[in-house]
């Protein structure tokens, strides 16, 4: 694994310049549904290993899956990395715990309350109150557990009266 970067184990082994270059390109690929975040921020990229990029879908039926793969292909090709292969894996299943700390900050700044950490242990830990991404109040309430995309729930803030999205704990 000396030439790999993994985003799931928290391990950052020695990186070759080639792998670093692939990682740099991937960090420029936005998520189509939340363009403020890159696919690396979201934890969709699992690993870069030699000339293989391994990705995983967030949800089984995520309609953006194909689009994301095409975006990665395009970005790699544009960077002269047409030889790099993209592989998809389902296991282990994606969890919102893989969203990076940087990604969580970007979500908040974008107006989406980030998910609480620890989802991997309890997939339905949505009972903790979300913090309003606009005014910071914890006086909030869930409107619907299903929102405009599979990964978001609808909430409202009782303090500033604004509705907001919360990234689902998953």
């Amino acid at each position, binding site marked *: 694994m000396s030439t790999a970067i993994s985003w799931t184990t928290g391990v950052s082994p020695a990186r070759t310049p080639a792998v670093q270059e692939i990682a740099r390109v991937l960090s420029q690929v936005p998520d189509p549904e939340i363009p403020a975040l890159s696919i690396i921020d979201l934890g969709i990229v699992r690993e870069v290993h030699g000339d293989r990029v391994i990705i995983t*879908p967030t*949800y*089984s*039926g*995520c*309609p953006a899956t194909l689009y994301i793969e095409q975006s990665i292909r395009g970005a790699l090709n544009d960077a002269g990395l047409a030889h790099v292969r993209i592989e998809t*894996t*389902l*296991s*282990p*299943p*994606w969890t919102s715990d893989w969203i990076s700390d940087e990604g969580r900050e970007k979500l908040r700044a974008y107006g989406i309350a980030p998910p609480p950490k620890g989802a991997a242990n309890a*997939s*339905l830990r949505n009972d903790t109150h979300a913090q309003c991404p606009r005014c910071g109040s914890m006086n909030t309430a869930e*409107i*619907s*557990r*299903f*929102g*405009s995309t*599979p990964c978001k729930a*609808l909430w409202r803030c009782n303090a500033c009266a604004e509705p907001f999205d919360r990234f689902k704990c*998953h």
Partner: protein
Amino acid sequence: MAALAPLSTYALRLGDDALILGQRLSEWCGHAPTIEVDLSLANLALDLIGQATHFLGVAGDADKLAFHRDALDFSNCLLVEQPNGDFAQTMARQFLFSTFQELHLHALASSKDERFAAIAAKAVKEVAYHRQLSSDWVVRLGDGTEESRARMTAGLDWMWRFVDELFQMDELEAKLAKGGAGVDKSELRAEWDRRVDAVLAEATLARPASRRPVLGGRRGHHTEHLGPLLSQMQFLQRAYPGAVW
């Protein structure tokens, strides 16, 4: 259709359950009582169709299997093809199925077959949401107004005949379960009963009376409701074979 290997047949059954229920739920799109419910049902449908794509992909070419088979070749359980009826009937069906599907997928996540284990481990997290949403509605409508209670009671009555089939085992699935790739669904019944009874109690509803179970979906013997569903779902690929976006 040519005979499939046992694992493919099992994948087909799992995929057909998810596909047909996903298609049924998508019929609500734009028609649900509120925008939040509309979004919820569309999300459930999306999850299920995604799961179907994965399971059917184990059995063969997912698109061909979805769009180029006739009713007799579908092996979904009869519960999932039942009509939406009103919102209460849809939630009754979802509650009974999601409670079962969650138990089934949870067990399947330990399958010796890596493909089944991976799909199940991913899907079970999604289905937990489906079970929770539908349970909430069973309670809300059951323990609601006189009318909502009557509708939920009628919805559960409609669907109850199709419950036994969920846990039915045949020789093929028994062999797979014994070998560690599949799940002995009959062993899930006690826990299903416990969970369903707990929600019904919270909803102050009585368990529907036992009736003669209706069986046959796994062998392609479907109710009259599957055909019209397929004719809508398959229309485009039937009219323009191989059409792509």
